[in-house]
């Protein structure tokens, strides 16, 4: 399905109940550079007082690090975020070797090193910023596929990335017509007469509630979803009026606190999501601090301002899979055109939960693994409770296949999908598509300082409702960064599918034979050639 066909399909299934004029957002890739005065790069270029502003560095650097506008007597401060580092510095054409006064030095940027952690290495953050800034995959000097966590997705590789398998996946194949490669996904496989919902990329945005992130973050996510014919999610906490122009690309969440859930909000959208649990705090429910329950938040949640709000775990009205079916039926009755997604966490019996959800009538099963999450959560829960998504995907995929229902349900996964390659690996392990959260925050400038909840909230103005902080970012910029990120991801997906000789992302689902797992111990020849 081409993009224009997909747009027509969207028009055809637009729910009559919404009736609100829907805004269109162009899928245009435009530069959206860092919103701070000094962009951070992997390397830092220092210019000493010995510089004579001769301009040789400007001529030498092909990456635009050095600039000297016409009429300027001095060379400007280096744009060191554009520098590719030692790879260039070792060549004769580098600014360092060309400088007649030895005034230039290149070194790793200590500030960039402060951003990293094992899951989200400094390189991953910088490469995500590059993708959000340019709309293109990151340059080779930034690692954009893997973190440094030493396990899970970081321990998996596609065979075409591994020496010894090149014959099976020739690079020449990547040159095949990539324009024909389809990354779209249908979400309704039940054949129950409800409308088909198609998304153009196998990725949509995770739930972030009104109150937990700034309004520009919410709207930016929604607008990028419109541009890419995908979805964003309201999270628990109501459906702000400003999201009405994007109804067709919003998922509204019915979570355990039922905050802000009304018939109207359910009837407005094409997908309704039941949230049983979330990966960052599985089995624990949510807690909105009294300070964050501002009058606007309280009005949306139909609660009293200033009171702490508990979102219990689990649904108080669900004690069994039969109760669960009752709830799914309730949603389907209220909105006869919507699809129902069920978001669950990853316990040891996640496979049984998935099967139960299918038989209860869910169109989409959304697994949220334990290492993800964007909001505040107890550290003990984030690290220790429930299994990482990498393990849950094959478990559920195989179980659904054995049950004979794999093709009747859409399996969407989230919780630690950081890169396009993570998404591809998740799909190869058995998912249909992925939901992302943290990567969108990083694209908007998050440095993962983990201060989302303290004081006035996010110091970068992404996850804060503070009037001053939330104005650090404009809506246009936020939208463009996310549109760009999706494009960069799609390009990488198309490239990888071309290497694998596939025409559609749907062909990749469950093809774990194109993956390999790294082993520390020596592996016998027989195992390698399996």
């Amino acid at each position, binding site marked *: 399905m081409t993009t224009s066909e997909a747009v027509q399909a969207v028009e055809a299934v637009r729910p009559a109940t919404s009736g609100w004029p829907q805004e269109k957002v162009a899928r245009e890739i435009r530069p959206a550079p860092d919103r701070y005065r000094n962009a951070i790069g992997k390397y830092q270029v220092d210019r000493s007082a010995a510089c004579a502003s001769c301009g040789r560095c400007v001529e030498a650097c092909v990456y635009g690090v050095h600039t000297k506008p016409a009429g300027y007597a001095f060379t400007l401060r280096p744009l060191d975020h554009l520098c590719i580092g030692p790879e260039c510095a070792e060549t004769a054409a580098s600014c360092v070797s060309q400088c007649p006064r030895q005034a230039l030095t290149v070194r790793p940027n200590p500030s960039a090193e402060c951003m990293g952690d094992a899951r989200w290495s400094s390189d991953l953050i910088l490469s995500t910023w590059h993708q959000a800034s340019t709309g293109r995959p990151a340059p080779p000097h930034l690692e954009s596929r893997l973190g440094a966590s030493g396990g899970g997705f970081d321990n998996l590789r596609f065979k075409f990335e591994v020496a010894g398998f090149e014959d099976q996946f020739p690079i020449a194949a990547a040159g095949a017509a990539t324009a024909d490669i389809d990354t779209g996904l249908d979400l309704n496989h039940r054949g129950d007469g409800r409308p088909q919902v198609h998304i153009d990329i196998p990725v949509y945005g995770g739930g972030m509630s009104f109150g937990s992130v700034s309004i520009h973050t919410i709207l930016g996510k929604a607008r990028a979803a419109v541009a890419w014919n995908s979805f964003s999610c309201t999270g628990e906490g109501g459906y702000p009026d400003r999201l009405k122009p994007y109804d067709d690309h919003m998922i509204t969440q019915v979570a355990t606190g039922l905050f802000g859930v009304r018939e109207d909000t359910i009837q407005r959208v094409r997908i309704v999501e039941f949230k049983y649990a979330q990966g960052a705090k599985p089995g624990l429910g949510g807690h909105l601090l009294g300070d964050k329950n501002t009058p606007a938040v309280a009005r949306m949640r139909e609660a009293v301002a200033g009171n702490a709000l508990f979102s219990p775990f689990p*649904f108080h009205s669900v004690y069994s899979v039969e109760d669960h079916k009752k709830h799914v039926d309730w949603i389907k009755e209220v909105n006869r055109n919507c699809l129902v997604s069920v978001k669950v966490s990853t316990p040891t019996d996640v496979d049984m939960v998935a099967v139960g959800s299918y038989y209860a009538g869910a169109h989409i099963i959304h697994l949220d693994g334990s290492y993800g999450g964007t909001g*505040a959560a107890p550290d003990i829960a984030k690290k220790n*409770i429930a299994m990482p998504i990498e393990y849950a995907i094959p478990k559920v995929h195989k179980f659904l296949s054995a049950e004979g229902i794999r093709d009747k349900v859409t399996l969407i996964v989230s919780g630690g999908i950081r890169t396009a390659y993570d998404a591809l690996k998740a799909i190869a392990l058995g998912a249909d598509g992925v939901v992302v959260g943290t990567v969108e925050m990083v694209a908007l400038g998050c440095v993962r300082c983990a201060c*989302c909840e303290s004081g006035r909230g996010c110091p970068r103005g992404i996850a804060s409702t503070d009037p001053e902080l939330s104005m650090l970012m404009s809506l246009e910029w936020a939208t463009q960064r996310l549109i760009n990120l999706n494009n960069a991801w799609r390009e990488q997906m198309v490239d990888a599918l071309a290497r694998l000789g596939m025409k559609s992302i749907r062909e990749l689902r469950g093809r774990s034979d194109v993956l390999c797992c*790294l082993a520390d111990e020596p592996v016998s020849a027989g195992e*390698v050639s399996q």
Partner: protein
Amino acid sequence: MPDRYHIHTVPMPPLFQRVGKFGNVDWREDCSRCSNCVKLRCLYDVYRQESAYNRDPMTPLEPLDGCKACLSCVQGCTKGLLNVSVNPEFLDMGDDYWKPDILLTTWNQADTGRIPVSGAGYRGRFHGPGFDSIWTDMSEIVRPTRDGIHGREYISTSVDIGPKPLRLKFTADGKMLTPPSRLLEIQIPVILDMPAWQAQGAHLAGARIAAAKQLKTLAVAGAGDAVQALPKQLPFVMPLLATDDIGNSRDILESARMAEVRDGPDVLDLAATLNSINPRLLVAVRMPLSPAAADRVVELNRAGLKVFHLCADLHGREILDGGKRGRHIKDSLREVHGRLVKEGLRDEITLIVSGGIALAEHMAKAIICGADLVAVDTALLVALGCRVCRDAHPTGAESQDKCGSAESCPAETDAVDRGYAAQRIVNLMGAWHSQLIEVLGAMGIREVRRLRGEVGRAIFMEDIEKEAFGDLCRVPRSQVRA
């Protein structure tokens, strides 16, 4: 419903300036002294608050221990002069097990008594050795502990220590023949143990005892330290006694509920002597966790001893002959537990495990691996500001003397006030208790007694890795391009 157990925490600010993770700010030349300086706009006001600590205002390095590394100043400075870097002093703390992040989170919990909470998802490695290769389960829909976390339903963390009769015997006319049980119930599955390597200051033992009373648990103390306990504290003291100590410890033994003796040839005689002084006294045998532990526990159980304290090393490893490092608690304790289950002895015996219990999650995971309760040692010193200095790890007399002293210990644990230390220990245990309830609540378990040996409600990395990735082609790491 029983009275709710509650740990009363009180904020106890640290006595010394904290070693921060980030924040050595260096300036490049050219500051224009603009009026819009990012130092004034720091969201956390770190520059102003910490100016008093800056040793030299002219230095190009400005240590900012409270910096969160949000990088707003670095990116906002009009001339791009600022850099923040990771603090090397922070990275230098602790060792490969007691990592700087563990020290920092322990300090924060001892400061406030609150659960560590942060945003932006998990940040650590995917898995690691020992406890880091276990995930606890959660219950998705059906569960008995609805709202346990938020206080509307009670989750019990109390455990029983002592012999439990598996069946009751009666005479033909209904009179019970089984002697009454001597179970000792404590309210958290933790006892406060002596740090493994430090020479024991009497005031630290006093702090542990005071904290144990407040926490309604037990504190291990040497015979010399136990003497100082007030009469009302004696039920919360667990003296560690040798044969020579008994003469001076009669008063303590009459009031104490439990005592500990080291394993050795005379352990049975010693236990019998203690019980002759106080027949209700529970006697635990303190022994190294080693491959021979299971055999020894079974042997001593036959001789009538029912409580065993298995001590791993500082890093949670078995203690082997010749100082070699053995298996982690996770593996060796499961072996001991499994052996006792197989022999039908498990419910008669109480297993206490210690060594390497550094975080609240270790407590839960050790219990899942088969312990009834844990003993915390090094973490209590860390709560007082200890950095687990590398130089002090050898157990030689010289390093023991220096450890904690004002001349060598940045936290000066030797001089810390007893009441202050006790409250910080209480705060740490309060935070651990809350975290244990989080884990139990997520699993849908109403009491920690039922967590013991519940390996079916845990996910072990070795098993799940095989299940999930076992059918994938495996290649050596060296075959992959860097």
